[in-house]
């Protein structure tokens, strides 16, 4: 059974790009547009990896990460956040909230896949 990846981003185009690349590589993808939706989706369909944007309406990425880590099922699940290179302070905060790593926007498909491989294994 292929692994499930949850993508949480308010930008549909980003979600699309993630979904295309990841499904193309054989992963199952579930999607959410903000943190609240994301928490619901995460419990509905347990994910092996979570991608989240940080700037989102309703519930931002940092809160989402913290809330997700409180769920016993998500302790230890890799959470990667999408960020821009310049955002050093955000990186620190997101790591503190419980994120595993990050992916710098903009990214290429192979960059995305290599970071997935890095946290999920081959």
């Amino acid at each position, binding site marked *: 059974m292929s692994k499930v990846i949850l993508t949480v981003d308010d930008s549909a185009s980003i979600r699309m790009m993630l979904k295309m690349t990841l499904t193309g590589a054989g992963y199952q993808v579930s999607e959410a547009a903000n943190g609240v939706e994301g928490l619901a989706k995460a419990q509905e369909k347990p994910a092996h990896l979570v991608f989240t944007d940080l700037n989102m309406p309703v519930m931002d990425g940092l809160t989402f990460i913290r809330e997700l*880590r409180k769920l016993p099922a998500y302790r230890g699940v890799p959470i990667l956040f999408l960020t821009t290179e310049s955002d050093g302070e955000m990186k620190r905060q997101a790591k503190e909230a419980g994120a595993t*790593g990050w992916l710098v926007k903009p990214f290429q498909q192979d960059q995305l896949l290599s970071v997935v491989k890095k946290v*999920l294994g081959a």
Partner: protein
Amino acid sequence: MSAVDPTEIFRQEAEELLEQLEQALLDLEHAEDGRELVDGAFRALHTIKGSGAMFGFEQVAAFTHEFETAFDRVRKEHLAPSRELVAVALAAKDHIRALIEQAETADAAAGDAIIQELRRVTDDGGAEIDEAPAVEPVADQTGTTTWRIRFHLAQDALVTGTKPLLLLDELRSLGTCTVTGLADAVPPLEELEPEALYLGWEAILATSHPREAIDEVFMFVLDDMKLEVERLDAPPAAGPSADPAPAPSPVGEAEAAEPDLSTVPVVVPLAAPEKTRREADAGKTTNSIRVPAERLDQLMDRVGELVIVQARLSQLAASGADTALKSIAEEIERLANELRDTTMNVRMVPIGSLFGRFRRLVHDLSRDLGKQIDLVTSGEETELDKTVVERLADPLVHLIRNSIDHGIEPPSTRLAAGKPMRGQVRLEARHAGTEVLIAITDDGKGLDRDRIRAKAEEQGLLAPGLKLSDNELYQYLFHPGFSTAREVTAVSGRGVGMDVVKRLIEALRGTIDMATTPGRGTTITLRLPLTLAIIDGLLVRIGQDRYIIPLTAVEECVELSAAEDGRSAGRSFLSIRGDLVPFLRLREVLGSNSPPDPHQKVIVVSTGELRVGLVVDQVIGNHQTVIKSLSRLHADVDTFSGATILGDGSVALILDIAQAVELGHAQADRQRAS
């Protein structure tokens, strides 16, 4: 634990190799078939060159390369190792040592001259001189570099989704990788957070990827982890290097993604990297490990403390009626004794390592003095405390120099006296009870009684006409500034005198004796304790205080009756089986005010041949004693050589016997004079 500096390890290794090289060269001179010796010398050179380049000793590597090239020729072409070759090779060996110790101050011109000479003596005429760059490339042909990577992730790393196994997999994908788990940070079970990560890992990675590739692996966790990356096959970076891994126990393949409680240190032996293989080779030949000396000292110290506490426990148990406690105390006493013996054993090294050094000394000295002398050694396997062996080097060098310079005659004189032309110095070591005897014997002309006597009288050390035993007379040789050498030669008669030798030996709680037969030679015998840390002592009481007299110095105990004491009041001599032995009233020396016991005892102690009696109130009994040195504040106290703690926690001082004997005889001399 002290940090281990790789260059220091190289220095040590090189020191040993140079030692081997020197032995091989010296043996070459006499060997019938020197092939194995040449091979041995070549191997030592090769290793010095290789590791020298790796640890940044480029000059050592360059010079050794030339040396090695010359020896390669000897080896391949089976050149007969001439005297000339051995001489220049020894000089070259010394030059390497100088380069290792201080490359900047080493004499480069001398080095070049040695190389020219080496080429000349090994050159068969037209052979081309190898001008190729001497230093072997640091990395091998494939450009592989070996790194030691040690890392501890943040404790919450597992919770936040980092999977250590994936990191290790990534490292493995970079090259050949051996991983060891580090469990040193794992707390006791009751403090252990089930989700926390305590393990660390050490990976030895041989990779052709650049250093950045390693950081890349840890990119997400780099900010909140401890990561040490050290290049193993190159000069280490300036920063402090890591301690070696605390003896990891090899288990199977790294399987655990999330290290649960059962995750013990994990080792993946893939391909042993260069360094490990070399260590394994070294282990094969000696089957021993190298431990910093201070750790042994620390161990001995702790054992000493343990023995003291154990003595207190035994005393406590003996004073009560608790039989269970008594049996435990006995058991602990047995274990503590065994532990003490084992620890002392660990510190023992064969004296042969020391003897080896003297061959060069004898070789050089006899050449310089135009004498022909063989050094014959025996008892190399005799073991002594490491510290004792180290501190014996200087006195022995001096004694051997003396034998060669003053003892053994020039060949012509020897022939005239009907002796073999070649002189002989024998160095023998053997065990005698708890002591080690080391004898230096030469077959030279022996000591000149009359000249020693004349010199002693001339210097005012000895009253003319006073009757002395031979041994008493020879003791004057140990007086500061006493030298019968008519002229000072380059070899002996400078600076260090026999008085210094004596002091050094006494500092080791040893004694020194001489025996000589005119025209036949001299034997100097050193008696040394096996160890410095513990002595068997005789516990005595003087007034309220207790003191320890080293048992090795004790000859006998006799009673000093009140009547005899009164009789001898003015003249402190005791007749023991016809011998007049001076005695010291320790209560006077130590300033004890309490009245003497009615039945005082005299303990006769000796250093070599000189005897003196020590008057004490009571002999309490044997006491095995852990010696504690006196503090620096008491460095100038020479009545005592140390202190110890008794079973009841009180302190007893250890009497310095050499000093006591000296004091006793000084007093006797005064009384004889009056």
